[in-house]
């Protein structure tokens, strides 16, 4: 692990928080997108 002097923890913590939250956002969005697609496919099948 790289050493950033006395602020090592703070730097890694802030990058970790950022990347973690962004990844969570991506995963949530993709899950929602997939669910919406599945639901639409199902609805179109029963409709047609």
């Amino acid at each position, binding site marked *: 692990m*790289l050493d*950033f*002097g*006395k*602020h*090592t923890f*703070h*730097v890694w*913590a*802030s*990058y970790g*928080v*950022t990347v973690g*939250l*962004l990844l*969570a*956002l*991506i995963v*949530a*969005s*993709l899950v*929602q*997108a997939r*669910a*919406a*697609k599945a*639901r*639409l496919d*199902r*609805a*179109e099948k*029963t*409709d047609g």
Partner: protein
Amino acid sequence: MSIWEYANPKKFMATTTPVIPWVSWASFGLILVGLGWGLFLTPAAENFEHSVKILFVHVPSVLMAINAWFMMLVTSLIWLVRRHHVSALAARAAAPIGAVMTLIGLATGAIWGQPTWGTWWAWEPRLTSFLILFLFYLGYIALWSAIEDQDTAADLTSVLCIVGSVFAVLSRYAAIFWGQGLHQSATFSADKETNIDPSFWWPAVLSMGGFVLFFIALVLIRTNALIRLRRAMALEARANRGAS
């Protein structure tokens, strides 16, 4: 050929679907390069030491937190005036992203504040108005999810977004006034953008661009999902009516 053609959901989806992967990968690339450069290749600043590296996640997220609300305001206005569903759904899609960006801005700000100002949190104008912005996002999202009828929800949240914008600006000025009443806060908000060192300039710009593209890609993905969801709900409603 006018821009309003993209207000047609089908046309919007057909146009944006091939664009999404490009924007996504470009944003990944920019964020990776920007943050990597910022993390490993920048020197320590004089008075901040290595904590200055937090700038490369803090500033872009703050930038997007404000611009996301601004984008929601514009799309809400378009929805109220021209009644394009895509516009309303885009505003809805942007809200959680803006909320997360605000959260990142607050969290990284707190982590940055601890070593440099000696405190995690201060009731300082910038911080205070950002916390209020976060509350606005929460209220907006809560109102969207509380109302079943999609058009009603879109109308009400648009009105809330416009009124909220006025009050968000008002809160900002109130907080500045109030903060000055307590202590001199100018030392806290050292001008980050203007007296920035050239060696920090490029990674900062790259990660800002990356965050902008990230926002665009996610808004497109989420808007497409919401369009699909809306159509599915309409079809299901029709099927139910046919069955009964």
